[in-house]
């Protein structure tokens, strides 16, 4: 597929190697910031960062505009944001229980941040989700990890929390040989890892899908009559792909928030 696309773009003949798929995601830094570094880590301001800043600004503007001057009878924007907060509050109280109210601000931040970062995937002129770079999901997952481990230590005490984690009660003693490494690995390593990977992989796959659909339209539709059938197919498929991606965007934000809440709940209320 990729080779055919490249050949068509090239004018029928294609020689040489293809760009690796990462070239869809990696961008050069703005010229002014090429030398910017902190402790040997490059602080490049590139397209991804600019998109992230822009989407953050949009989210902040919307939230501030909705809540700065609250009315008793809410307007359209205010009722939308109230619905969102209500939704997260319901999720927190459903999953975490009575102690959930404390985590509503964090969960709302997760949801709004991920939703807006993902929405950049389908925003015209941006068309790149910053969450498809590993740093964003990585630090989101690290925050979630820190919060649920911290909540466990705070609610149950350091020793008790790790004892419950490593030696879940109600299991025959001999099984601990098997169970303890698995439990420790799954609770402390695999949870944040899959949390990160789920968001990251979904966004990467979605971005590649959108790019392939749009490039197929761009390349095949004008090449009459050789590949115009593929072009027409891509043209018909594009709205469906966009709709599907919109579903994925909302679903990933929701799943990340919900799983963070589930992990916090497992720390706040020890397993029975």
């Amino acid at each position, binding site marked *: 597929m990729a080779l055919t696309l490249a050949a068509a773009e090239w004018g029928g003949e294609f020689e040489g190697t293809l760009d690796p798929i990462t070239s869809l995601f990696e961008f050069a830094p703005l010229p002014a910031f090429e030398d910017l570094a902190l402790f040997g880590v490059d602080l490049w301001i590139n397209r991804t960062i600019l998109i992230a800043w822009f989407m953050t600004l949009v989210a902040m503007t919307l939230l501030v505009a909705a809540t700065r001057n609250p009315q008793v009878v809410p307007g359209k924007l205010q009722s939308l944001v109230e619905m969102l907060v209500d939704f997260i509050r319901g999720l927190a109280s459903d999953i975490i229980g009575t102690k959930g109210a404390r985590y509503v601000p964090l969960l709302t931040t997760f949801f709004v941040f991920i939703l807006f970062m993902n929405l950049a995937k389908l925003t015209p002129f941006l068309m790149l989700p910053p969450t498809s770079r590993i740093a964003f999901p990585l630090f989101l997952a690290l925050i979630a990890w820190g919060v649920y481990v911290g909540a466990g230590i705070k609610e149950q005490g350091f020793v008790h929390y790790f004892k419950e984690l490593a030696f879940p009660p109600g299991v025959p003693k001999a099984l601990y040989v098997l169970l303890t490494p698995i439990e420790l690995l799954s609770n402390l390593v695999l949870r944040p890892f*899959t949390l990160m990977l789920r968001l990251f992989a979904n966004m990467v796959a979605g971005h590649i899908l959108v790019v392939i659909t749009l490039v197929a339209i761009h390349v095949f539709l004008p090449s009459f009559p050789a590949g115009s059938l593929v072009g027409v197919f891509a043209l018909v498929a594009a709205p469906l792909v966009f709709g599907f991606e919109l579903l994925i965007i909302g679903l990933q934000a929701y799943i990340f928030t919900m799983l963070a809440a589930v992990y916090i709940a497992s720390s706040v209320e020890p397993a029975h």
Partner: protein
Amino acid sequence: MENLGNGLVFGLATLGPGIGLGILIGKAIESMARQPEAAGMVRTTMFIGIAVVEALALLGFVLAFAI
């Protein structure tokens, strides 16, 4: 040949989770239809299950590019 391997890694990695997701969502719909008043709880639990099952397929997706 290398690309073929990448494709195979992801393709094979989706087999198990695909079957798992089918069973999981099917059972969830079944229980929702049987007891509509428990739909909210079933849906939440279903999403947690989906998230766990899906992780395997995503691992395959990442490994396909990493290898």
